[in-house]
């Protein structure tokens, strides 16, 4: 987690865009990797899925250290 300065609102929106995009990409890559018959393409998709998962985890950490992040706003807390 970050010390002192927290992530600014504008950055948070950008991170949100990236995570949404990455989520779709990773889901698609995972589905498509099973669908294609070409070995090489399947490997590429599988690799992309694995790194995307790591990236999404990192981005999620960043979003959770944003000043807009509020645990109390989580749906399951209501």
């Amino acid at each position: 987690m970050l010390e002192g300065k927290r992530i600014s609102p504008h950055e948070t929106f950008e991170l949100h865009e990236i995570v949404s995009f990455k989520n779709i990409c990773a889901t698609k890559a995972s589905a498509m990797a099973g669908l294609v018959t070409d070995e090489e393409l399947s490997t590429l998709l599988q690799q992309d899925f694995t790194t995307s998962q790591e990236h999404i985890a990192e981005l999620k950490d960043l979003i959770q250290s944003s000043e807009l992040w509020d645990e109390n706003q989580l749906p399951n807390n209501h």
Partner: protein
Amino acid sequence: MSYEKKPINALKGPMNNDYLEIQNSEGMPGLVDSTIALNFLLNAKSGIKNCATALTEIADPEARKEIHNMLNAQIDLHAQISELMMNKGWFHPYHVAEQFKLDLVSAQAAVQISNMQLFPGNTSRLGTFATPNY
């Protein structure tokens, strides 16, 4: 330097057209510098986007390598400009209200500048250049 802390606040009243008068030029340095820094930052932002877009369209390995280097340099430059602007108080990404206030003051100053008579009516200086056939 004191102007670094509150560069634009010096624009208290409506801008006087007699901008060569010392008391009317109060706050000018901060205003000029923050405007130029903002222009610089916007250029750096466009530079990053342009390099990245070019990278997705170019196949030549040598060109890719050079443009990737350019992109990295551009990202570093962007980091330095935004850091400088934050240090000087020209940019408040963590304080949106402050940033909005600053943007409005800058915009107002720009509008006032647009109404100023800054340059002589006739700017043709061709006689002073070696362009006889122009």
